[in-house]
């Protein structure tokens, strides 16, 4: 069933209100919940049912790969590709290869962290239904929003509306698709 609406939305003034509302919605069995806040509110993500992200693991893996890659590049070019005597040092002077390998580790890790986060968040996404929601420009100022998406299999107009009303939002609105 396709709904013309994307979600039902409620607006709050404080983080506490949003967290408790989100918690309530989650307890009520809603899963397609989205909560918007102007800053990182402790416990909000958990409240909407967010499990721990796999970002750290990805960063670690990428960093290690970067480090090994950096070291291999040096070993290959200095020992295999074109070995040359330099200051009577061994072709494979590993202590001298450490700094570059280290920098590569950091670099690869950083890339993973940054792009991993974007990827996980599905950004960049310039257009989104929520942007058309009333007052939503305040979501980056001082207001807190909770959305119950209509594509939630458990979504049911009446229950959702009732639940949101019960949290005494500043206002309630419908977000068009």
């Amino acid at each position, binding site marked *: 069933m396709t709904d013309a609406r994307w979600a039902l939305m409620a607006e709050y003034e404080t983080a506490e209100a949003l967290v408790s509302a989100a918690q309530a919605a989650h307890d009520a069995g809603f899963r397609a919940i989205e909560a918007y806040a102007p800053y990182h509110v402790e416990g909000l993500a958990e409240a909407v049912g967010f499990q721990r992200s796999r970002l750290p693991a990805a960063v670690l893996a990428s960093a290690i790969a970067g480090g090994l890659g950096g070291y291999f590049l040096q070993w290959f070019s200095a020992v295999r590709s074109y070995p040359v*005597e330099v*200051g*009577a040092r061994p072709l494979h002077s590993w202590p001298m290869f450490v700094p570059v390998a280290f920098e590569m580790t950091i670099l690869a890790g950083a890339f993973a962290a940054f792009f991993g986060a974007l990827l996980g968040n599905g950004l960049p996404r310039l257009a989104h239904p929520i942007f058309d929601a009333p007052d939503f420009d305040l979501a980056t100022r001082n207001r807190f929003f909770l959305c119950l998406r209509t594509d939630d299999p458990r979504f049911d107009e009446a229950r959702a509306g009732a639940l949101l009303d019960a949290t005494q939002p500043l206002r309630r609105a419908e977000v068009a698709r």
Partner: protein
Amino acid sequence: MHPHPHDPDDDPHVIHIDRGAGVNRRQVLAAMAASMALANTACSPPPRLQAHPYVDLPEAGGGNLPLYYASAFVRDGFAHGVLVGTQEGRPVKVEGNPSHPSSLGATDVHAQASVLQLWDPDRSSVVRQRLARAGDAREPPQVASSTWSAFEAAWRERADAQADPQGGATLRVLTGPLTSPTERALLAALLARGPRARWHVHAPLADVAAADGGWLAFGRVVSQVLHFDRARCVLALAADPFSDGPGAVRHAMDWSAARAALREGGADAHAASLFAAEATPGLFGARADHRVALSPSRIEGLLWRVAAHWMPEITPADVGLADPAVATFEARLVAALREAGPAALVIGGAGLSAEAHALVLALNQRLGAIGRTLTLIDPPEAAPGAGTLADLVDALGSGTVDTLVVLGANPAYDAPAAFDMPRALRRAKLLVHAGLHVDETALLADWHLPLSHAYEQWGDARAHDGSATLLQPAITPLYDTRSAAELLALLSGDPLRDGHALVQRQWRAGRAEGFDTFWRDSLRAGTIAGTASAPLEVRGARLPPRLALQAAAATTMLTALFVPDAAAHDGSFANNPWLQELPRPFTKLTWDNAALLGPATARRLGVATGDIVRLQVDRHSLEVPAWVLAQQAEDVVTLPLGCGRRHAGRVGDGVGFDANALRPSTALSAPATLQATGRRHAFAVTQQEMSQHGRELLRTVAAGAGLPRDKPHEQLYPPFPSPVHAWAMAIDLDACIGCNACTIACQAENNIPVVGKAEVARGRAMHWIRIDRHDLDDAGASGFQPVPCMHCEQAPCELVCPVGATVHDSEGLNVQVYNRCVGTRFCSNNCPYKVRRFNFLQYADATTETLKAQRNPEVTVRQRGVMEKCSYCVQRVARARQHAERTGQPLVDGDVVTACQAACPTRAIQFGDLNDAGSQVRQARASPRHYAMLAELDTKPRTTYLARIRPVDEA
């Protein structure tokens, strides 16, 4: 024998862009690289280059191996035998001629730099005729370029006038010192044509007193040929036999060879003990075992006192007072002379009086030295019947000179100021000048005729011992020039005009049969066998009168000494940038000359180095920069000649001051006064610090002793072997006399650019092998140490290069790959020996064609922003290796000779293969005197040193 004429541009191997685009390829490459880097996406195709083959392949062949022509470098009329090395038909490098008595294979700075003189872009290339005579010097002369035929036509008319037996027009010919048999014969013919023709000789550096000394002693002029190899004790009085005169290189060579036994640590076999009493520091004094710095008058006092020991007829009155300051020196000297007996040698030099010179001869005779350590010969340059410059000036003054021909001389510049030469010259009705450059004299002349360079002509000249030396061209004249002989033939209306024919005619006389073989052998040898002057038989020398001791009672007057500049010489080399930028041995001064003063004298006059002082000699005065030098004698001010040229060319004009402006006469010394002006002058020097600060960079040992072997350091890494060859260099500091020949030889061989005074002052001189001078003690003893790249086995420079532009090759060379260098300069910072040189700006001249033609095609010309340094003449190593690989004969010791090694007049430099057990350098490394500089840094240098041996009684 000599290559076919061809313009270097037409050479098949000289690659260049179409004439249209007059840029050189390197600039194009740089531009392309830059445009790439700047992401210039214009898809312009690379330039299409052209190649120009020969029209007829020269006899010499089209190969790229150097061809050597035995010829001679002529300075002050004397021949120094050289082999002119040509690459692709262009003379690019000069080596000594091993079979020439003045060379024995070695050269001095001037011979090395002579090749650049050939390619000097300011060389005179056309006949110039003055249209209207300028009333005075200030008016610019109106000059038009003319032709030889025009001149010849004009000359014919005058010649007929001169030929008139009833005292025709007077002809005067002024030349420099002339030893060439051919030229003298032709000159004689010319003078014979007119009854009122006369020859004058002008030698700006000739020591008149020395010549008179011969008259006083023997009633004739004599010249001395010194045999250092036979001497056991040499005393030089105000003389520098290692750098003055045509025999200097030979003297150094003989002296060095005679020390071999001593150097091997053996007993003091034939090593001469050297004593120097010098007024101004010289190479001999620096190398002498015992040295004192005295004013000429005190030197004469010393001479008389010493002579008295052998000449009872010298009265105590003549001897005069003792000189306590030099008592010990004197005692040692007398003892040494006694011991040496007939193997002693006393040399008198510039600044001494005629009487002193006579006494020197007498003393030598008394010691039995004549015929043993020195032979007297007829001076090869002697011109009996020829007048002096002074005579000519008188003649000119009396207005009786119709025609004056100045041949290869430049009196307008290098005549003493007293003669007011420019004015005198203008009195000649017709002034003809012939020379290499349009110089000061040429500008006064009605006709200027361009002469050929020595390496462009057939000719001859005599060596210091009188041996006739042949000049053969290594290239046909670059311009429409004539050799001096050809010019004289023209003047005297000789039927023969070709230099080759003229010289052959000269030598064919009395050799009708077998001439061709004689000629071929002589050409190959470069000298004509058996032409050395025969020793003179002289009667007992007359004891000269002792001059009134006015000198001894020295007033506050200083003695001004006029000496040739170590680089510019008498001024004839002033336009040679290699020489101008060559650090003078003691001051390390470049692009300048300075009035040298002793420390005490300077203190007395309140003068410091760099102060501008006003010098007054007789009625001439001049403001010159002063230099206070510890080695300089007190009460003596040394004034180097040859600088301050007004019309030398783009290089030499206005460099330094012209000391001739102070000369009252042709004498080389004169009383002078001096006071400070309070103004300062900026010098450009290459070495600021002469003290070693207790660091044993230049080490000395007692005779027969050795240095402690420094024990090898623990090694963290396994060494990289040099399996086939392991090149190394050993420099014997006991042999080095600091003559700088290696520096210039290196510059010529390796296309090293000159940077000019400003850049030198900013510490950017480019010499690959620099000669450090260290003060060995407070008494002013100097030690010289050539410092090329050390080619360290554990090279600090290589470790820090980010692009691997300096790395080691498998033969142990520390190679600098110019085309990879990006110019971080970290290598230079990390080089403990500071032998790396950087092209901070575009130093290499990319526009002047003749300078490009001089370059060694085997060596890359470095671009701006690139590091460079001594390469052990890798191109010579490569040439030898490639020859060996082509022919299959293995390399043997001596196949590779570096440029510095070849030039060295004392054979101080050995180069060779450490893997060759018999190689010279291996033996050198085995010597107990062997050491590595800054060994504690464990860079394992391949260039190492042999310590200098201290004088026996100082050990």
